[in-house]
């Protein structure tokens, strides 16, 4: 009986099932890229990087109860940090390691005043941060201005230069696995419990000794670090960055993916990113067919986020992963006893 009690348990679905999911994703991340045709490999890289950012957004929204509509800003900061460092001769691996650090530092500096805001106010403030960053980047000649930062060298790890998409697919998989692992570890820890507690009652959490402000800032920085790391890989992968690569729509995309996958779950953001990206790809293929009007791709890509979000809120209010979990539990009712 004692052994049963001591088993780590959590209402957040982060126990044994999550470990299986993690193993499954890792195998998929390793086995899938070589099987994909070249043109889909690029989509896979973008998926893994987007999912990495979404893991951070989900951590922020699902567990800490904060909304960021400007997460692409930290994606951009990580990408530009890695890109600028590499252009100025810093070893690319060092640049990749510094990208999340710089994004996290930026988040701490911005978050200190911003996180005094809550709910919609915080969401709009983060959106404003991204808009300001984009216009600053467009003005900054040292960062390539509106034309963009060009000639970023490729990522070199221990003397081996990643030239092919396959290499970046693995790098992106690795980064995603790292983000998922860290998110999971944090959620079940003392810090994660404190965050989840503060999301439902700040007063009671503070009375238990949780420094609410510092924890809100820490999780904001952690989510920014995840975005920054993904941004670093993105910079080396494309070799070219411009403010146009980080539109506000991208920030909204991260939020939609997190909500569709299921807030408050570890695997939700990965599932959400996969579903949205595949859907956008399919619609994009459809929209660029001969005979479709020229505005079709733009309209369909904007519309898909709106439609997916509305459908999700109406029919899967908790998101994909919790819905699937409930469905599997319904077919196997004895699982809880085993």
């Amino acid at each position, binding site marked *: 009986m004692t052994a049963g*009690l*001591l088993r*780590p*348990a*959590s*209402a*957040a679905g982060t126990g044994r099932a999550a470990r299986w999911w993690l193993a499954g994703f890792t195998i998929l991340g390793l086995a899938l890229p070589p099987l994909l045709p070249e043109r889909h490999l690029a989509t896979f890289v973008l998926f893994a990087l987007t999912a990495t950012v979404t893991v951070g957004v989900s951590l922020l929204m699902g567990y800490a109860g904060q909304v960021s509509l400007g997460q692409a800003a930290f994606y951009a900061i990580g990408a530009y940090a890695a890109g600028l460092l590499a252009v100025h001769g810093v070893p690319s691996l060092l640049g990749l390691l510094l990208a999340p650090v710089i994004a996290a530092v930026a988040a701490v500096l911005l978050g200190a005043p911003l996180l005094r805001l809550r709910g919609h106010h915080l969401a709009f403030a983060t959106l404003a941060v991204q808009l300001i960053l984009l216009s600053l980047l467009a003005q900054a000649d040292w960062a390539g201005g509106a034309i963009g930062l060009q000639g970023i060298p490729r990522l070199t790890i221990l003397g081996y230069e990643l030239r092919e998409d396959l290499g970046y697919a693995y790098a992106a998989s690795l980064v995603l696995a790292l983000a998922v692992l*860290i998110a999971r*570890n*944090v959620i079940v*820890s*003392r*810090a*994660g*419990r*404190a965050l*989840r*507690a503060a*999301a*439902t*009652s700040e*007063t*009671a*959490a*503070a*009375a*238990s*000794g*949780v*420094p*609410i402000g510092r924890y809100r800032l*820490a*999780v904001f920085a*952690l989510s920014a670090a995840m975005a920054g790391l993904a941004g670093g890989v993105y910079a080396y992968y494309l070799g070219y960055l411009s403010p146009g690569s980080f539109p506000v729509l991208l920030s909204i995309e991260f939020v939609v993916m997190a909500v569709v996958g299921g807030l*408050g779950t570890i695997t939700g953001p990965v599932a959400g990113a996969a579903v949205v990206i595949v859907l956008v790809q399919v619609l994009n293929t459809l929209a660029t067919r001969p005979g479709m009007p020229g505005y079709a791709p733009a309209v369909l890509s904007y519309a898909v986020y709106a439609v997916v979000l509305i459908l999700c809120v109406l029919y899967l209010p908790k998101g994909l992963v919790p819905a699937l979990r409930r469905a599997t539990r319904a077919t196997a009712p004895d699982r809880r006893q085993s």
Partner: protein
Amino acid sequence: MTVRLAVGGVSRAFGGVYAVRDVSLTVAPGELRAIIGPNGAGKSTLFALIGGQLATHHGSVTLDGARVERLPAHRRARLGVGVVFQGARIFHGLTALENVMVGAHATTRAGFLSAALRLPAHHREERAIRERALTCLDRAGIADWAHRPAEELPLGQQRALQLARALCARPRLLLLDEPASGLRAAEREHLAGLITALRAEGLTILLVEHDVAFVMRLADRITVLDLGRVIADGSPAEIRENPRVIEAYLGPSFVRSPHGAS
């Protein structure tokens, strides 16, 4: 005589109206002090001023000789102030066990980095927190609920959960705000037994309570508030005989009736 808690001339106003005015009291280590008073006497405000949920406008709050009235609630928790709120302020989405584990926050250290990297020290601390939390759940009589989401617990068990959470920090001063209200008779008896046992172990307890009968048999000393001021302070027997207390509890409808002045 050493003093665990000293409240010196504390005041707090809301929109120009004093909820607590110039209140002073001292609590000795190991004492079970009750604070009673009619509705609107300022009991809960005083509780929040000691716990750090509200800031004082005047006066001092001293814990074991250290001034704490300017410290935020989480710093006071680290100094050993445990709080059980009125109603059930539990953490939804966390299991009962996790709720109690959050209670250990004030006395533990592991942060984001050691959690993310899964350092060995982190594992050791997690295990210690879990064991301590299970012990506290057991003490509060709700060990069977450990792995249930906290919001699924009945109200009485949610109250017990709050108490277990506060105990998990091993406080030096335990603040209880109307812990008995809304409980059924059996639950009330269990709570009284638990409070008595904690007092016997030497825990200093400040019990804010509306129910006079409940505190009369538990408290060492009773402080009576009315309209934000201390009107009496003494042993339960002294308080029972005090004419001002009797007037405050029995007289308001008579003495301060809006029609009484004509």
